[in-house]
């Protein structure tokens, strides 16, 4: 079971979180024209990298904040966590 450091609450067990997918995906702006290709990429196309990956998790059984987690998808090592408004380098 992963041990995830919520930037608001500290280290908590994975049980308290739910997974939210790739954090690098950016939704096209609302009320702006978007090409079919960009939209399809946003809705459907996801990379499945082996290694470092920045993902979204939500601390559902805690502060309910969505957070960013940089995790190695092969070893599960977590390098860094951050608020969604912060950048992960």
């Amino acid at each position, binding site marked *: *079971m992963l041990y995830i450091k919520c930037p608001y609450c500290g280290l908590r067990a994975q049980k308290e979180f739910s997974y*939210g997918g790739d954090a690098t995906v950016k*939704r096209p702006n*609302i009320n702006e024209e978007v090409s079919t290709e960009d939209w399809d990429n946003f*809705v459907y196309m996801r990379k499945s990298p082996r290694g470092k990956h920045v993902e979204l998790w939500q601390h*559902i059984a805690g502060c*309910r*904040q*969505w957070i960013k987690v940089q995790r190695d998808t092969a070893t599960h090592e*977590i390098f860094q966590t951050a608020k969604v408004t912060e950048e992960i380098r």
Partner: protein
Amino acid sequence: MSQPFRLNKEGLINRNKKISFTFNGKKLFGYEGDTIASALIANGIHLVGRSFKYHRPRGFFGAGVEEPNAKLQVEFNGHSEPNVNATEMELVEGLSATSQNCWPSVNFDIGAINNFLKMFFPAGFYYKTFMWPKSFWYKIYEPFIRKAAGLGVASIEKDKERYEHKFEYCDLLVTGSGPSGLSSAYAAAKNGAKVILAEDKPRFGGTLLTDDVSIDNLSGKDWAEKIISELKSMPNVTVKNRSQVFGYYDHNMLVMFERVSDHLEKKSKFTPRQRLWYIRAKETILSTGSIERPIVFGNNDTPGIFLSAAAKEYMKVYGVLVGKKPLIFTNNDSAYETALEFKKNNVEPIILDTREEHSSELIDEAKSKGIDIRFSHGVIVANGYKKVKSAKIGKLNKDKNSFEKIETVECDCICVSGFWTPSVHLASQSGNKLKYEEKIDAFIPDKKKQHETSVGAANGSFTLEESLKNGFENGSNLSAKITDTKTEIAIPNVNEKKYGAHDKFWCMPLPKNENPKRFVDFQNDVSVSDIEIALREGYRSIEHVKRYTTLGMATDQGRTSNLNGLQLVSNIENKIVPEVGHTTFRPPFTPITIGTIVGREVGMEYLPTRKTPMHEWHEKNNAVFVDAGAWKRPRYYKEGNETLFEASKREAKNVRENVGICDVTTLGKIDIKGPDAAEFLNRVYTNAWMKLPIGKARYGLMLREDGIVMDDGTTTRISENHYHMTTTTAQAANVLSHLEYYLQIVWPELNVNVVSTTEQWAGAAIAGPKSRDMLSKLYPDLDVSNEALPFMGYKEAEFFGVPSRIFRISFSGELAYEINVKSDHGMFMWEKMMEVGKEFGNQPYGTEALSTLRIEMGHVAGPELDGRTIPSDVSLNGLVSKKKDFIGKNSLGREAFNVESRQKIVGLIPIDRKSSIPEGSHIVQDQNAKLPNPKLGHVSSSCWSVENNNPFSLAIMKDGKNMIGKKFFAVSPLKNKSIEVEVISSHYVDPEGKRVRS
């Protein structure tokens, strides 16, 4: 009553307490502190089971977790458990053990005929044989294999025991209380670290209990006791025996299995049987020790053949002799200690040492005691069927591939030692890639992936001095990093015997024309010839050899067989062992009970139960409940002998004719506040929200980004910047997360907050033509006229003195209201409604009637919003704004969503107006068409229309809008029904929606 193999004095058992038990129906006794194995051996019983494949007689081989054979069906404390390791299970009064995998008895087992047919049971036998003819599989092969395979019998009784889970955090977890574990724990504890020390066995000390050593002039056992009692007195230390750390998971999460009370004759009601510990450790010391490996020889599975260290443990811990005429067969010095222990107990052993004559401290001691030592010797084949009677031994030539002399010696047990294998299971589970250590012919941990450190024998250090030094150092250094304290500890003086080098010898050759079975894996009956066949047939990867032969795949995880298997493969393949590699170690290290995994999450505690504030009233009034997620909702209120069908019809009819009330507390409720709330709703919902006036509700539809309908519900504007959203019961949690996602990540610039208020409000719907009359009685001071409180209107008013919210919304399609009060007032509200509603014929209605009402109105719910439908599929495209952008809008333009023949919701009625249409039925043109019959749609919801008094269903049909008036068949192969139906509009009752506005 005498125990012929019990020594008079030796051992750590309590001779003052006799314990009686039965084995295969025979009454026996042992002492407190015995295992089933030690008590049986004391009674001279060695034949305890039959082997898996050939049903060969099997006895004990080890004295702990390494045991591959002695798995028994054990009944105690009122439960029956299969595959219990006799060498681990402690004796308790009244315990009853029976042999497994034998019929009719362990002494006479019909399956043993397999042993004589063994040429027909080679590796891969099942794969090769049961492939043809195909038709034989179900009726002949499968039942036969089922009967023949497997070991014990699982109980079908309900497990009455209590199991617990515990979550723990510590600085240092130490797994194993041998010398290196004790010293690690001690050093860390002295540094002030929070330490958990786990020992699998009932007694602490590991090899200190059996090795002839001294530490600071104390015997190993006394030193261990001293350290343990000191550790127990320290508040920062938890010391646990009977506790096996069996799994190493991500981020230093380890799982431990504690046998809390299996050894107790009596226990209090709330003492759990077993406990599962989830331990998050900052650092882990793996002091799991090592397991002796056997040397492979002919008939090496005969009862009476033991690992040499196990024989010593039986003497020193249990005061039991495994035999009185022992042969010691070894390639190293450690077995000499077993020989010396026999000698001390006046038993004369013969030592067969595969090494050439040489000298070492132990060899010299054995010689001086007059023990018969035969160098360059080994056991070729054991004689005896149910027990060893003699052994054919041979003097090996210089190359150790043939014999200079062969003779037969009498013996009643053979104690074998092929050197030591570090227990690297936990290290490997943690992600540590192991490395092969030539010096000890075994794998040891290499680079670590997690915070684990292997010490002592688990790391390949086999001397006491090294183990202690290793333990103190690592325990101290690892904990000092955490506590910032370093207490100097003097490393104690150690007195131990020096071992000479071992012989890299692991399998006896066979003389010409002799071909006895030589087992590598006892538990799965894998012999040398099986592995040879696998290699001959082209299996090369060790993982494939493992699966083809089942080597190391039994519950003992190949603890005594893996390395010998690897040696064999590397010899035949002419590779070195590290090139062959090893198979994967997986948790659990030893079998654990399902009960422990489940813990307290059984029955009522499987899921939390959510009850509405009115639950007790429903219970008292004969409600039959249905689960809606974790919620309990009344499905119907039973009157007399009513069936579900009759009751729901009565309740629904009463709503259509008079008035009914329904508990709608379970609907998701989300409070939305902030100056940008309207803009947010406008983006979340498909319809327009910017102009909703204060005091008005609106029905809204929410999509996912892929255009599929996510949820529907009403949202009411309570005040300028305050909205109250409702969701379906099922989607409440998802919708909240969805809103939070957009507010926190996508549009953080919107100043809006959302919070769930589902638990804060109790809700009741009042529905039916008389609901306004009833409402006016509930709110005598309020103008509830159609003008003052129109459809989709909202008012706040006192309900008999308590604050309440009134929403004029309707799910049933009737004139209806929903009243919300604070949860604490829910019961008060409900009872008042029942009282006031009497004169209007008010009756409560459950979810079944609620469904009926919404289905015949054509209102969609979960079965239609099933994650596959877009707004137009369910005739809600009127709610999709063309003017503004919203979540999922861009996807609605997809080609597939806009084809002419796109699916659409329709209504169905049976031609005979009688047959109800099963939900899930497929709609087909021709019920007799050749399969696969093209499917035109499916029935999503069905009811008995109380308005028209005949069955009615909703269905999602391909090209639905052009199907009205046509006839099809609704077929349900599951219910074996085929019903001719006519397609009509999905709005069966009041299609103009006049009633809700009346």
